[in-house]
């Protein structure tokens, strides 16, 4: 067992209304020099959060006192670019448990699922309504992410959308299992396959 079990989340959300956010923005390469998985949250969105003198950039949503919570809501095509899992680690380490967008880059989506960060893909119209709820309530709007029923709900008005998640990965997240546990359990089958295909 090596990921945290994912349970229903009720939280406010941080809006980051930018499309095509690449993993170099999520965590720049110069912060990938560690051999351990810790402390990446400090450098999450480093060059958007801080200027070159390490002063906070007030206009960036993560620095805006109105916005907080374990849900990050972003523009379309989140997580493109490099395969660095450090991007998912940085988001998780910072405190996010859910990222919501109208689409995710493939590698990022897999990485997120593998570390227990839930990527929730919603329709463009629903995404727009989530942003509206955040802005209109100055960041106080609450949302519920229910993995069991695969629903994302704007609690203020009950607006709900169903989201897809692979049934295998859903089980892993709910139980806190990772793929290594499972792959080791079918070791004999893998060995037979390899012999047959030699």
């Amino acid at each position, binding site marked *: 067992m*090596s990921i945290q079990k994912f349970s229903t989340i009720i939280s406010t959300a941080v809006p980051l209304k*930018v499309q*095509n956010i*690449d993993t*170099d*923005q999520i965590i*720049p*390469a*110069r912060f*990938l*020099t*560690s*051999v*351990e*998985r810790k402390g990446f949250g400090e450098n999450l969105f480093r*060059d958007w959060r801080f200027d*070159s003198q390490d002063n906070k950039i007030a206009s960036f949503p993560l620095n805006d006192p109105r916005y907080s919570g374990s849900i990050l809501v972003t523009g*379309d*095509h989140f997580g*493109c*670019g*490099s*395969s*660095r*899992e*450090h991007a*998912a680690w940085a988001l998780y380490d910072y405190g996010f448990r859910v990222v919501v967008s109208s*689409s995710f*880059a*493939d*590698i990022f989506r*897999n*990485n997120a699922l*593998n*570390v227990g960060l839930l990527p929730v893909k919603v329709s463009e119209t629903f995404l727009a309504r989530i942003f509206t709820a955040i802005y209109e309530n100055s960041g106080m709007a609450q949302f519920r992410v229910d993995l069991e029923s695969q629903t994302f709900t704007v609690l203020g008005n009950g607006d709900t959308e169903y989201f897809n998640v*692979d*049934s*295998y*990965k859903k089980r892993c997240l709910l139980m806190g299992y*990772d*793929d*290594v546990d*499972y*792959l*080791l359990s*079918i*070791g004999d*089958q*893998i060995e037979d*396959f*390899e012999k047959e*295909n030699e």
Partner: protein
Amino acid sequence: MKAMTLLDKIWDRHVVRTEDGGRCVLFIDRHYIHEVTSPVAFANLDKRGIPVARPLRTTATADHNVPTTGQELPLDDPKARTQIETLANNCRKHGINYFGMQHPNQGIVHIIGPEQGFTQPGMTIVCGDSHTSTHGAFGAIAFGVGTSEVEMVLASQCLIQEKPKSMRITINGLLNKGVGAKDLILYIISRISTSGGTGHFIEFAGEAVRSLTMDGRMTLCNMAIECGARGGMIAPDETTFEYLRHTANAPADFSHAVEKWRLLNSDPEAVFDREYVFEATDVPVMITYGTNPGMAININGKVPANAPADALAYMGFSSGETLLGKAIDYVFIGSCTNGRIEDFRLLARLVRGRKKAENVTVWLVPGSKKVESLIRQEGLDQILDAAGFSLRQPGCSACLAMNRDKIPQGCYCMSTSNRNFEGRQGPGAKTILAGVPAAAAAALTGNISDPRILFNTIY
């Protein structure tokens, strides 16, 4: 029998079992690792007391964080030193073949895999690096993975993956003179967008693709990830076999291997989930103007009216203007996109007898020790040196600026690499992606120049 795509043929042969919901346990033939995305995977295995299942299927090198000068000296960057030593130790402990900085096979992981013949048609190949798509040029399913997946492959030689959708991009006819694989892929990304390939594997087909050398095909597949695809692939043919025949790890019974490899192509009736067709003669010399690889235009064109304002603000460009004549501060030639020997042969041919512009710093970073030694053997180093270029040692270098090869804040860099994201080449650096000829032209003139005009007489 149902007509199959190349993707189907390779994928289906590697499925160990299928889970409820459709995810497949996929057997991985070849695994490449490097110093940045592997240490946490090894540490987790150690923590769980799990050995590496099949160490002979993994090959390791140090590339992302190595310096590109003084590789023979002790590393003075403590963090890089720790990462590289950790990789060396992990490989020693688990019996994994490791090409460290002093090894003649060291280089960028996507350059050395093909170069050494570890990458072969019909294989499934993964690496904790998105540009693993490069290896698809040999007719393989090759894709980038994260560190958890590196751990899975080390532990079991398998991954649990959704089967991607299939896409075919056909390029009819031959490319115009002076237009290369880099221009072609930038053109394709500009047409289908940086997310156009999401969820898909792209098979590149058509006369323009068939006529590319292996080096060109690798450039094309390398950037398949930049349109969001899981990977790119090209059916193997005589060009592929000829390349592999001379590699160190070519199969012992080569003709038998070729017989099997010849079956690796999409059936004529195969149906793809998506298809695009482009005409090769429509592809110009391309450069980027913005902050993702899809923001690319004809080098003689104008920045589009609908270009995103934040990208233009970052780059210091405006809609409607031409980029020709804009001053360039740095030129970077290298990376897994354009750091192979053909790139340096072309560069030397273009700049022979000329001098770089005074205002430009030119970094040449060979993709591997082998590329570096060929540059010297063929005397290209003398031509490049006389032009005032600085030939450095192999690594990823300024492509992602993890090491000290950073483009200074605010400077423009014409780069043969693959990503022009904000800060990719250093905080505040402004990257313009291009092929080797456009980069060579910028190095000589000090500004953005059409290489077909500058080099008209020699290419």
